[in-house]
């Protein structure tokens, strides 16, 4: 028997205690949530997706949001058990839960571990109280520090997020902050520069001139410094904003970036399943209430499920693959997009980037250098338009 094709599952829990002013994710604040009703709907949707992907093996599960750590550990248990009943689950399946460091959530960490979560991703965002307040986070620095100590001793793998390059930041201020953060680092760290996404309060403030983004030069200096400092500490920049010691990369996210297959379950979740001309793009209804009622009836919360044409498959691979320091693997590219890399990326343009010191190429792959990664969007535009 040939080995089963791998599949990943993304679960979206759309609720938060408070909406952060920078966040454009599909997250909502509700006074009360009927959690048992939600769990039943998620189970139903998983059963539906299993029918489409029965012969797959689950290799990663990721619980994002929203704030999934607000779920009762018992609910998490029911959903994970359900998945295990439906599919075969790889013995080393990576099961990640996103969590916030509030005391309320930290109290459940041990229970989350007990029901099967083996990797925790903590949204620390900053070790500076004014920055936490600016970012609309509702906990104190001390809470985050306690939570980090707690997860380090509870979960075999963990990561945490920081947001830097805030409007008030500069390199001199950031250096000690980063060094302090490094004292808490395990095997993985996500460092995001603040971006202003349409639909957020920060974006509004930027548009109306009440807020100014940090200038690109300073942000570029901070980015460069950050990458260099983490490499010194043995944490390689394996993606634009993600750093890990060798082998400790977030396997679930690598599935997105390398054109793997995953199903998305929950409001607004996206998925991609299948190869080449068979590849389908799945999207879920964004509104939590509409998703719930659809999932409870015959709709399973699905908004669209449509084929991705071959050109788009190739483009998606470029858009995501070039985020990685390992770049595009030519063999994977050909397997997933059913075309040669030269068809999707003009060799002349690739050479121009290589000559400019922004990209590299080997017989097996094509990717961006550290300077090129910092210019990813412009490189993609150059290559694909």
């Amino acid at each position: 028997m040939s080995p089963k094709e791998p599949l990943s599952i993304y679960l979206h829990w759309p609720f938060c205690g408070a909406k952060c002013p920078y966040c454009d994710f599909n997250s909502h604040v509700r006074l009360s949530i009927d959690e048992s009703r939600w769990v039943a709907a998620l189970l139903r949707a998983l059963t539906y997706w299993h029918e489409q992907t029965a012969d797959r093996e689950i290799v990663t599960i990721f619980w994002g949001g929203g704030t999934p750590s607000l779920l009762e550990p018992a609910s998490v248990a029911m959903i994970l058990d359900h998945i295990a009943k439906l599919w075969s689950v790889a013995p080393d399946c990576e099961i990640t839960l996103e969590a916030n460091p509030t005391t309320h959530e930290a109290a459940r960490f041990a229970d989350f571990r007990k029901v099967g979560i083996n990797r925790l991703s903590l949204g620390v965002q900053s070790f500076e109280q004014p920055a936490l307040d600016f970012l609309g986070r509702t906990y104190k620095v001390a809470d985050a520090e306690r939570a980090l100590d707690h997860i380090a001793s509870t979960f075999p793998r963990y990561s945490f997020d920081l947001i830097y390059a805030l409007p008030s930041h500069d390199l001199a201020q950031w250096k000690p902050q980063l060094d302090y953060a490094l004292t808490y680092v395990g095997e993985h760290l996500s460092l995001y520069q603040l971006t202003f996404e349409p639909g957020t309060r920060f974006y509004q403030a930027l548009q109306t001139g009440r807020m100014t983004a940090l200038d690109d030069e300073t942000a570029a200096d901070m980015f460069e410094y950050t990458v260099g400092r983490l490499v010194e500490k043995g944490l390689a920049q394996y993606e634009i904003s993600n750093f890990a010691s060798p082998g400790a990369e977030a396997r679930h996210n690598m599935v997105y970036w390398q054109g793997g297959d995953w199903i998305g379950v929950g409001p607004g979740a996206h998925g991609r399943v299948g190869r080449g001309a068979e590849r389908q793009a799945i999207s879920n209804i964004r509104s939590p209430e509409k998703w719930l009622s659809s999932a409870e009836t015959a709709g399973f919360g699905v908004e669209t499920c449509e084929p991705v044409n071959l050109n788009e498959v190739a483009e998606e691979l470029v858009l995501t693959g070039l985020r990685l320091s390992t770049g595009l693997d030519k063999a994977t590219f050909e397997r997933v997009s059913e075309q040669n890399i030269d068809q999707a990326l003009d060799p002349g343009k690739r050479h121009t980037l290589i000559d400019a010191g922004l990209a590299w190429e080997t017989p097996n792959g094509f990717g961006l250098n550290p300077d090129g990664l910092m210019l990813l969007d412009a490189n993609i535009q150059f290559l694909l338009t």
Partner: protein
Amino acid sequence: MIDLARIRNFSIIAHIDHGKSTLADRLIQHCGGLTAREMHAQVLDSMDIERERGITIKAQTVRLVYPAADGETYYLNLIDTPGHVDFSYEVSRSLAACEGSLLVVDATQGVEAQTLANVYQAIENDHEIIPVLNKIDLPAAEPEQIQAQIEDVIGLDASDALMISAKTGLGIPEVLEALVTRLPPPRSGDANAPLQALLVDSWYDQYLGVIVLIRVMNGVLRKGMRMRMMQNGAAYDVEDVGVFSPKRLATGELGPGEIGWVSAAVKSVADTNVGDTITDDRKPASEALAGFKPNLPVVFCGLFPVDAADFEHLRDSLAKLRLNDASFEFEPESSPALGYGFRCGFLGLLHLEIIQERLDREFDIDLIATAPSVVYRMYMTDGSKMEMHNPSDMPDVSRIQMIEEPWIEATIMLPDEHLGGVLKLCEERRGIQQELTYAGNRAMLIYKLPLNEIVFDFYDRLKSISRGYASFDYHIVGYEEGHLVKLSILVNAEPVDALSIIVHRSQAEYRGRMLCSRLKDLIPRQLFKIPIQAAIGAKVIARETISAMRKDVTAKCYGGDITRKKKLLEKQKAGKKKMRQFGNVEIPQSAFIAALKMGDD
């Protein structure tokens, strides 16, 4: 037939804003040509642009029926003339159709340069001239000083100048009476002689087709007869004739001394040559009247649609404008930076601006205009000679023996406190002083200047240096050899044809530095550094570098974000139409448009 002794043909000479159109309105009103309901400001200026800018572009006429103090009724024909230097040709033909002029001078401002040029033309046409001081009701009016100025500067007796206020109506009856008593009737005209009518102007009316404005010298033009254009011999049936009241009024015939309109089955304005003589096809005159010298474009520029899809629309619109304005020319041109467009020739900068504005307003086309250029004469080493309208047509320098550029004689009138700045400007622009005279506190400067320095930004600079008080007029005096070079602008080592200009060698560094630094500010940073150079041939004389951008990256991209990134990519692909390729960089067309639209600071 109207008795010659009862006819007065006149025009009004005035500087912009000195009150010409308001005076015309008052005269029409006084003679009852329009009811109060039909009366609106500047009735003779029918184009929106004319009304807004307070200028007259096409000659307009009106017949005033005036019962004079002597008990007789007089027919006063007014030909309204353009006040701007670009349209001096139209002025000259309007003046040729009249025997006298009202010289209107703003009593608060005094004589301006354009007035001067036009009044000299009127004198050349043997006009009787009645000085009129307008705006006499304003506290700032200085009638005695202005009278003295008219005598000093123009050399015209202004002791019996009329004191009026066109705005309030003060002195209007006196103007009408003076037209009758002080202007001569038309010189002898013979109603029985073969028809000779001067073609003064023509325009296209969307209901009637081509309307021709004429001044009858001899004979009678009647409805139903067959008229012949003496220049090309083409003959047309006269559908109707009449006068403007200013409404078009059919009269059935026009006799000697009269000014009026003719409609015939003429298809295009281009079939009617201004200055031509119209005669009777059956009983033609043996001689044509003295015509005018043809009007040649002196300023050229490229006009390109911002949206390439508007190219056809632009062509149709230019063709329509040309129906009514045979004085501008256009031919297709293509530019790597700006796409497809037209090389157009104009009578001057105002003419250019007006055409541009009409294209924008009446035809709704967003335009890019390249830097204006003049006509250069090239003498080649092989002995041949050619004219160059477009810097991109510049031949290889090794083939050129000599280049000549047009020079003008400029008359500038200004309050003397701004004299220093204006003298400096003229010297910077390679000017050669011919004359400097004073009348009261106003100075009159006459300079010889190269036209290419004028089309660059001379008007704007003059206006800003003199705070708007200087007036300016010019005429071309001839061609002279100049050390002229083609200044090319290179972006990423590739020339941007739309930005190349012909300049005098002494101005090249300054203009090159200015263009480079302007582009540096306008071109967004790219993946690669972009050199911007100004060069004469292979020699770089100015250089700027746009450094490569350092950071352009979306911090987060997970499962759901891929769809959004793809949408952005689609948008970028669509935006590519508005990008121009320069080696390995793409530069938004908008940067070049902005570079061309910016003034010289």
